[in-house]
């Protein structure tokens, strides 16, 4: 059998072929699987990052929306929350061009008898779509000046 030292012209002998082939196959498989995994992780990471940025920015815009804000960011006027509807929201936040639709849900968590629960659906949520949600805490001020502690859940999904 030819040894590695005898190989002067880079020609693999019969018994050298198998380990050579094996090493090349293992190395290639290992590299391709790592590359595939990295590409998929990168794609997921970017996709999640973009949609998370969109979601955070959208929440920030709602918290700062002049129509709702009474005095400070995240402090909403009760009568405005009560009269809020999908048309009003769509007029202000038309996110279709940005590639997503949304749903906003405000739940009054205070002990006051009058509650400011509100759900705004811009579009029906399609089946089997991935929905990204985040909660943000806001206050809603009623006509007597009481500030109701509320949870605002914003969900978005790609169109």
């Amino acid at each position, binding site marked *: 059998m030819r040894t*590695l030292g005898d*190989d*002067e*012209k*880079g*020609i*693999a002998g019969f018994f*050298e072929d198998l*380990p*050579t082939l094996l*090493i*090349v196959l*293992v*190395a*290639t498989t*290992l*590299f391709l699987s*790592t*590359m595939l*995994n*990295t590409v998929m*992780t*990168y794609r997921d*990471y970017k996709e*999640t*990052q973009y*949609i*998370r940025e969109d*979601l*955070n920015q959208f929440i920030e815009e709602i*918290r700062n929306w002049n129509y709702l804000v009474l005095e*400070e960011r*995240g*402090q909403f006027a009760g009568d405005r929350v009560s009269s809020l509807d999908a048309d009003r929201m769509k007029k202000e936040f038309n996110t279709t061009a940005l590639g997503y639709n949304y749903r906003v849900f405000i739940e009054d*968590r*205070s*002990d*006051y008898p009058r509650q400011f629960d509100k759900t705004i659906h811009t579009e029906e949520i399609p089946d089997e779509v991935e929905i*990204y*949600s*985040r*909660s*943000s*805490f*806001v*206050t809603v001020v009623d006509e007597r*000046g*009481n*500030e*109701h*502690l*509320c*949870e605002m859940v914003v969900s978005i999904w790609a169109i």
Partner: protein
Amino acid sequence: MMKLNRDECGQLSLYDALIYFTILLVASTALFFYSFEMERDEDFTRTEEMSKITEETRLSIMRSTVPETTYVDKNGDEIQRENNNVESLIVEKLYLIDKGIESDNISYGEDIERLVDDLLRGRYEWALTAVYVREEESLIRMSLTDENLESGDQSEILEQIDGDIYTSSWDVDMIKGERGHVRMNFILSPVWQVGL
């Protein structure tokens, strides 16, 4: 050994294969660690997001009001608790303790704990500590916590929390006419990853 480009027969030797293996192994390792780098970036983004959520949550809780209630004090007199926001109620409670007129029946703390617990239960562990500071001296301490945490000063509470901890600190003036201020600290720790 002949180099690949000089290999007249175009066939890989075992030695060439080992070099090929080493190069791909190094490349695979670099790619593998790049994935970790992305996870670290994601953790950083999540930390920024949580800091923001902590601040938003703190502001909303402190600003919210608790419905007015009547309490009976130590002497059996009825006290009408004003419809005040959470921050003012905490300051008022510290004032009452300082003046020695606080009673167990004046359960400002319980109302606030219940309100915040209802809001954050199952998602966050939370605590709120308040210290009445006058002339650089800490006079009275109080803490409000969720049902899983024991009351105590800030360091005692922090020791009980296993997860990531986010805090927000601020000062509030004492009731008008009184010297000193109240140093408050809001602690939030996500029980599971909130949001995405």
